[in-house]
């Protein structure tokens, strides 16, 4: 309880964490409340009102098929955010597992996983992702999995380094002397103490995953029309960039704002969590 209170106190005192956090929550609420906020169905076409500039009727204008851009964008945010979270969930799971196992057991297991990380890192990420998409075919599910499978390496290294520094602490030895199993030691004693950098990395990871998803969708390899995603709204908008600026400007701004808010939150969390939450009292 005390720690939670202390965290809240530090969090609200940290400007970038606070701004980032509020923005992230707003975006989440908008995505969840999408059907309530939008006056139109995201794929409802109305050719009579195509390519309308922003007006009271269509807040952000309409596209070449007469669909309401505002509705498409807020429904798109649902897809972008869920791709982001699902991808990060997968990459965090892999990263935690690989990092913890490598760091804790060391030896050839560590060698094996770390070489694997090197290999994954040595292939240009976008090239790797594009190859996989072409191979597996574009779909929301595939995009989530592919992003998850290609972005776990940094976290694995981070967790491994944390575990290495933690595993020889005396409380770990004490647990071993009590006959605790490896699983118990990793789950109960090591990971909870290694979570601070994981939280930070997850936050940055969501931003990164959303950016990759937008990029893929923009190239037509991600979320497929008619499902709206910020990336594919941009794609269809780019043909009209000279006549209908709103088709590209708003999704671009949405991507930008989302990335910024997650990065602010991540930055803030790093500042709060880095000199550990619960350090022993500083000695004078």
């Amino acid at each position, binding site marked *: 309880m*005390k720690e939670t209170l202390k965290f809240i106190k530090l969090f609200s005192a940290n400007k970038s964490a606070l701004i980032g956090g509020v923005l992230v929550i707003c975006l989440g609420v908008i995505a969840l409340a999408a059907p309530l906020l939008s006056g139109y169905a995201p794929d409802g076409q109305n050719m009579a009102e195509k390519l309308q500039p922003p007006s009271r009727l269509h807040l952000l204008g309409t596209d070449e098929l007469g669909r309401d851009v505002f509705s498409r964008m807020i429904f798109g945010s649902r897809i972008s955010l869920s791709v982001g979270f699902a991808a990060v969930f997968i990459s965090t799971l892999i990263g935690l597992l690989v990092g913890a196992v490598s760091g804790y057991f060391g030896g050839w297991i560590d060698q094996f996983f770390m070489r694997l990380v090197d290999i994954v890192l040595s292939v240009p990420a976008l090239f790797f992702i594009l190859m996989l998409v072409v191979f597996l075919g574009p779909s929301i599910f595939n995009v989530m999995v592919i992003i998850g499978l290609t972005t776990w390496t940094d976290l694995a290294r981070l967790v491994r380094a944390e575990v290495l520094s933690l595993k020889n602490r005396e*409380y770990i*030895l*004490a647990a071993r*002397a009590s*006959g605790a199993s490896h699983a118990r030691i990793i789950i109960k004693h090591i990971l909870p103490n290694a979570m601070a950098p994981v939280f930070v990395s997850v936050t940055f990871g969501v931003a990164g995953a959303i950016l990759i998803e937008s990029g893929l969708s923009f190239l037509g390899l991600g979320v497929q029309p008619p499902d709206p995603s910020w990336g594919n709204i941009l794609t269809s908008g780019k043909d009209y960039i000279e006549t209908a600026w709103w088709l590209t400007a708003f999704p671009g701004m949405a991507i930008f704002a989302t990335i910024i808010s997650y990065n602010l939150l991540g930055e803030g969390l790093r500042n709060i969590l880095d000199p550990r939450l*619960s*350090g022993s009292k500083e000695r004078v």
Partner: protein
Amino acid sequence: MELVKVQNIVKHFRKQKGMFGAFETVKAVDDVSFSINEGETLGLVGESGCGKSTLGRIIIRLLREDSGKIFLNGKELTALNFNELKPLRRDMQIIFQDPFASLNPRIRIGAAVAETLEILKDEDAVRKAAKMLEMVGLPSSAFSKYPHEFSGGQRQRICIARALVSRPKFILCDEPVSSLDVSVQAQIINLLKDLKDELGLTYLFISHDLRVVRNISDRVAVMKDGKVVEIADNETIYKYPVNAYTKELIGSVQETGKEL
């Protein structure tokens, strides 16, 4: 009666000089044998790097030896695997030097002390842990607090409670008072002595501080470069040291009572 028997234990570490340098072998423990009787405190003194902590960790099975045997109560520990060893962990425990590093900062005191019993599936773990905390002189309010709320001396009491909660026969004390303030150090030494009498414990007391070892041990072993160079009765080793290194060690102690 012999409780712990150490037979020809050898442990070598390979160390590389620099990143590309040649490997050299460090003989951390070099053919050490001794035994500890039930109810006895054996002091193990030596300077940093002499292998005393490595030896201690081999005895309570936190490290594997290269060769040699360890017996506890007649059972050969060195022949057992992880699962066979598990029930025997109840009988041997360890107290570390640094009370700040030896408690998990995220686990409450009560849970930390009860952990050994939980692993052993003892249903009475919580009550026993509370009782143990009381026994080492901590208020019952300590049970639900976190480690950072305690001073060094209190933390060492918690570590002692954690080690003793499974009612072990043998305790390895690895420099348990070295990082404590002098006035607190004396409290912990007294506590260890009291608990030994009360619970019939057997200690292997590792320390670099001859003054502390002299005050708590029945017998003393002196270790240097991985070997036990002298082992004798507390009185004998202090009054009639045979080995040159033992003599140097005794002569190096800065005493307050000594006239200069």
